[in-house]
């Protein structure tokens, strides 16, 4: 018996990284899972690797587009009949730079990727969860949702905004059987970090290796986190046992964040 038997989940950015690990953990616990991503090719590959048969489904689309975000949620309901768990997970830093040099486009794109995507999917999911008086909204925030970092303001701003959104929404739907929480992971060497990390490091005035070392050094465990660390916490938050946890910004960062 799984902790999520009979549940239906949608995980944005679910083909790789934290989203993929979460989707696999949800599947293992008995849920049916929709994963989303931009690339149909990566989606097919993920489905094949996950081996979940009819219990896992891919929907292609771009989280920086509102229509796509709404289609992820509607597509989940169309495919499996309902949505119990939304994991708004996709995100990253687009063209990071110091504030004095940060372009409008880099700020806008990063906000859309992280914050607007979380808002759009959350609003659409609440439209289903409020009438059914049950649901779990999970957002992948970040250590940078609690801390500032030089050269990374667009990402930091977007993740802080997600934390505020989570706390407000949690207070709105707290008595309706719907919980809204964020996880705040520390540095994890996902595919996304491998591809975007070098640019972020450059913006922060260091090499990619130095960036990884900086994340490890700032933690108590002196190493990076792993995607499974996050997935296990998300299973708990999504399960019945998580019913009393809402509006929480849970640090999964090896002891890095000050609060």
């Amino acid at each position, binding site marked *: 018996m799984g902790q999520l038997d009979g549940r239906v989940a949608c995980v944005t950015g679910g083909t790789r990284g934290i989203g993929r690990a979460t989707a696999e953990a949800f599947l293992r616990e008995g849920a049916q899972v929709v994963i989303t991503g931009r690339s149909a090719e990566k989606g097919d590959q993920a489905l094949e690797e996950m081996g979940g048969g009819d219990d896992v489904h891919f929907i292609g689309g771009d989280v920086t587009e509102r229509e796509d975000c709404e289609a992820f949620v509607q597509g989940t309901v169309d495919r499996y009949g309902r949505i119990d768990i939304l994991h708004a997970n996709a995100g990253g830093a687009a063209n990071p730079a110091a504030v004095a040099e940060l372009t409008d486009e880099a700020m806008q794109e990063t906000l859309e990727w992280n914050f607007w995507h979380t808002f759009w999917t959350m609003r659409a999911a609440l439209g289903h969860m409020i009438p059914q008086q049950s649901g779990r909204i999970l957002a992948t925030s970040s250590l940078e949702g609690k801390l500032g970092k030089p050269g990374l303001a667009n990402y930091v701003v977007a993740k802080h905004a997600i934390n505020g959104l989570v706390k407000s929404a949690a207070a709105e739907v707290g008595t309706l059987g719907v919980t809204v929480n964020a996880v705040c992971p520390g540095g994890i060497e996902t595919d996304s970090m491998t591809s975007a990390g070098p640019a972020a490091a450059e913006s922060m005035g260091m090499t990619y290796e130095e960036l990884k070392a900086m994340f490890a050094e700032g933690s108590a465990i002196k190493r990076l986190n792993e995607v499974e660390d996050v997935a296990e916490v998300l299973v*708990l938050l999504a399960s019945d046992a998580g019913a009393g*946890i*809402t509006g929480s910004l849970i640090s999964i960062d090896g002891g890095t964040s000050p609060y």
Partner: protein
Amino acid sequence: MGKLDGKVAAITGGTRSIGRGMAEAFLAEGAQVVVNGRSAEKGERCLAEMDAGDDAAFFAGDITKQETAEGLVDFAVEHYGQLDICCLNSGGVQLTAPVAQMTDEEWQLEMDWNLNSVFWGMRRALQHMIPRESGRILVTSSVEAKLGKAGIPGYTAAKHAVNGLVKSAAQEVGTLGITVNAILPGMTETDVVVETGPASAQAMGLDGYEELIDMFTKDSAIQRPNKVEEIAAVAVLLASDAARNITGTLFPVDGGTMPY
């Protein structure tokens, strides 16, 4: 297969309430458990009710005394051969009062119960865990560790302090396979609350138990108390191998009460 197979846990104040919930959850996941409390009678009853045979044991003693906190750790090691999980859970107040009326005696009791017992137990447990390069320390903190509440200044101060202790200790042992975390429950409807709530409500001039519960849950998003099982589930996760990279975290189980 349990998530805590082969692990040994010690829990301060584990005969009832949240500690008891942790003990039962740990047993269900395959751990051996030592619970502690002042009353030998309650200890015997707890063991009988948990019905775990040799996998559960009771260590009697007043946790506001250093010898109890340290003795519990030593007993677990002697009895089961090791200590993997130390839950520093016991806490509370006796005759608490606003700052202006607080007696030195009550203040000292609240510090001993809520802060010093955690330090004494943590220090002893770490002395055992550091050479083994493995361990989990879990502290039952509270929403009062982040919020001030009128009339319980000692408890509030001690719980704030406990969070600091957790974060410092986590930094010290982060590379040694040991994690140190706190769980911050909101108002939790334990067996003790159900039993003593009506009398407390009367003493506070409230119109019954329901009004007492409402008063303590009105600031939450869920507008209801938390459940022991909700806290125990987080304790199991943090105690398990899956949480090896989670440390120094103040994990809320408060239905959306705390501002951060």
